[in-house]
């Protein structure tokens, strides 16, 4: 608890406002709190609760804003305007959608398992909100600084897989369970390259805590680990059921996916969970690969602004990809994961491990491996970029024979007379 107060400025501020007294003078610098002596635990509780409220509301508001942003940007990609009738620039459009969903009838099929059916939106939203707990938003501002934060993020993120299976099973609809099982197969096979790509980042930073990762990024890791960033981006797109991996939720041919039977606000919550999942993924990408709240100027004061900018950039990348690519078939998705992403993840992991060992060895002091300095990070960036290009090209050659497209031939008819026959 002590190190918690020491490092987390927001927590400390709220705690000291409530519970500062002589016993806490080391951290609270002599401010007097509101609560009487002996009630410090209430101060802890209120501080944690406040930060959690800020996070949860921010996430849900962000989901609404993301819905708005996605519809506007997709509209501009299509050379039309997005929704712009409700509110200035259409900003209240998500509110209109929410109202519409609230007044719809809430159907539960007769043969469905009621308890599980109702729990599914809760579990989906829960998994993404839990994953927001470890992300540092600004200098010394976060809810928790776990020393296994990266692992925690991956573990909590895979709770949504369970939610999808619950949705498919409890709907009582054979098409829903068919779609849900395909989806679960896809999701668990994309976990593997996802985790592998994160291990590279962890190796360079030296610890799994996100705060340490941000502090170790003298050079943004997207340059140092280009292959890892690409694999993580593709893997998290598949986890979120975004195009081009969205067989489950787009009008997927005839089988409408795991959320067929959901209507009304349950459906709204599932959609909100998916949109907020994109935001959570963008937040993690911004933290692990672009440097979180650090920026070129005014890092410690404007950390939140830099973080939001990077988050917006990655959210834009997700929307951009959605607007451009068609969908892949399920067997092609699995082949992509196992035959393309996984070997690349292994190559990335091995090369990063070798580099970290040699640079650590180079900087070694008496009995421990040294920290990697900034120049060495640039060297690693160069080496890794070269490896990325070589690896992708090699894999391209391997799959080239299936991708070869011969153009259609233009048949020049010799005579264009009135003879009916083949020329």
């Amino acid at each position, binding site marked *: 608890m002590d190190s918690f107060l020491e490092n987390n400025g927001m927590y400390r501020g709220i705690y000291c406002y409530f519970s500062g007294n002589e016993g806490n003078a080391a951290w609270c610098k002599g401010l007097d709190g509101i609560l009487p002596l002996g009630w410090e635990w209430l101060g802890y509780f209120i501080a944690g609760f406040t930060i959690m409220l800020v996070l949860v509301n921010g996430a849900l508001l962000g989901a609404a804003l993301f819905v708005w942003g996605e519809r506007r940007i*997709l509209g501009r*990609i*299509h*050379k*039309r305007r997005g929704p712009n009738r409700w509110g200035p620039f259409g900003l209240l459009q998500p509110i209109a959608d929410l109202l519409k969903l609230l007044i719809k009838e809430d159907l539960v099929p007769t043969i469905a398992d009621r308890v599980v059916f109702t729990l599914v939106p809760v579990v989906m939203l829960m998994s993404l909100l839990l994953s927001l707990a470890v992300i540092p938003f600004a200098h010394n501002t976060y809810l928790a600084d776990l020393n296994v934060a990266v692992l925690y993020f991956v573990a909590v993120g895979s709770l949504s897989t369970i939610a999808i299976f619950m949705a498919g099973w409890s709907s009582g609809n054979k098409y829903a369970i068919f779609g849900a099982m395909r989806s679960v197969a896809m999701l668990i096979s994309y976990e593997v390259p996802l985790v592998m790509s994160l291990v590279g980042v962890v190796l360079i930073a030296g610890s799994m805590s996100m705060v340490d990762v941000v502090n170790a990024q003298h050079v943004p890791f997207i340059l140092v680990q280009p292959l890892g960033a690409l694999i993580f981006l593709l893997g998290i797109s598949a986890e979120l059921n975004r*195009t*081009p991996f*969205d067989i489950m939720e*787009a*009008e997927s*041919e*005839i*089988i409408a996916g795991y959320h067929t039977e959901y209507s009304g606000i349950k459906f709204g919550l599932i959609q909100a969970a998916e949109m907020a999942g994109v935001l959570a993924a963008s937040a993690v990408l911004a933290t692990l690969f672009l440097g979180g709240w650090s920026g070129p100027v005014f890092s410690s004061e404007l950390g939140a602004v830099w973080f939001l900018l990077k988050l917006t950039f990655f959210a834009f990348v997700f929307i951009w990809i*959605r*607007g*451009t*690519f*068609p*969908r*892949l*078939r*399920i067997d*092609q998705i699995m082949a992509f994961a196992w035959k393309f992403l996984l070997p690349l993840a292994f190559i990335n992991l091995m090369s990063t491990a070798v580099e970290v060992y040699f640079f650590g060895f180079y900087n070694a002091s008496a009995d421990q491996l040294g920290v990697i300095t900034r120049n060495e990070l640039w060297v690693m960036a160069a080496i890794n970029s070269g490896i990325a290009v070589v690896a992708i090209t090699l894999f391209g050659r391997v799959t080239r024979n*299936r*991708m070869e*497209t*011969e*153009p*259609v*031939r*233009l*048949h*020049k*008819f010799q005579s*264009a*007379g*009135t*003879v*009916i*026959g*083949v*020329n």
Partner: protein
Amino acid sequence: MAFKTEPMTINIGPQHPSTHGVFRLRVTFDGEVIVDVDPIFGYLHRGSEKLAEERNYVQVLTLTDRLDYTASMTNNQAYCLAVEKLMGVSVPERGKYLRVMAAELQRIASHLIAIGFFLQDLGALATPLMYCFRLRESILDLFEMLCGARITVSYMRPGGVFAEPPEDFWPALRRFMEESPGLIEELENLIMENEIVVVRTKGTGILGIESAIANSVSGPVLRGSGFAWDWRKADPYDIYDQIDFDVPVGNNGDNYDRFQVRMEEIKQSFKIVSQCIRQIPDGPIRTELPLVLRPPAWQESYGRVESPKGELGFYLVSDGSVAPYRCKVRSPSLLNLHVLKELLVGWKLADMIVTLGSIDINMGEVDR
């Protein structure tokens, strides 16, 4: 221990986002593989052929607009060819050039719909569809200048074309011809080399040449299978024998080839339109026929064109009165559907929608 499985029959119903119109398919699946296909159509039947027996020859022209409603100009052209053969009149040169120009513009518009919806079925979330429709908007604006309506045009009359294009048509057409190749190239950059499109359409839905010819398939489906047959070259009508253009022919007969054939045909149509603009002579646009036609009794004629979907033909029998005795429509989409069983059985569910999109049927034509 062997699993007991049983095939599942489902309906891809008349209302569906991915079928092109009200088309019903009863498909029997064994797991993910299609075992049997049973198409059921008739949901858009309006009795056009029977209605044509009650209306005089120019009124039937307005019925023909609505057969293949994405390509009305070529419907009009086929019908007018049939009536002209019945009456024994010929069309002046300028009328022929205007007809060909309108028909080729319509071919571009119809192929844009085919390509746009093909990519929409692949899942590209309406981006290529919007780009295709933006191009089509320019063509429909040109049609509005020509004849006052965008889709159900009724531009042609037996004997030629009904009106001279207005003066602001030619600059608008020139502007369209200048800016469109850039937009088509942008569309190509978006989709032609896209690995996802290639990997989903290459090698699926293969139609062999012998089977295509045996099932009277025509149009881009036949040319995609490798057989070079185009009615504009084999039996030239209007002014096609004096225009130089090529006919794209595919290699393997899969979905990607049919899609590529349509893209190339768009470019060839641009070539034809630019030649028409250069070569069009002055003169009358229409052979003057009476307002109410009475062809000689008990003649029959068959007028056919190469419409964007295939060979469209009208078979007319006259009985000396103002209305045809029998008007039969040989519609390409209906006959192209005969190969559906061969194209779908044995393939997976995800390929079915793509293959249906690449045959490019139009229910107005199938059901009439």
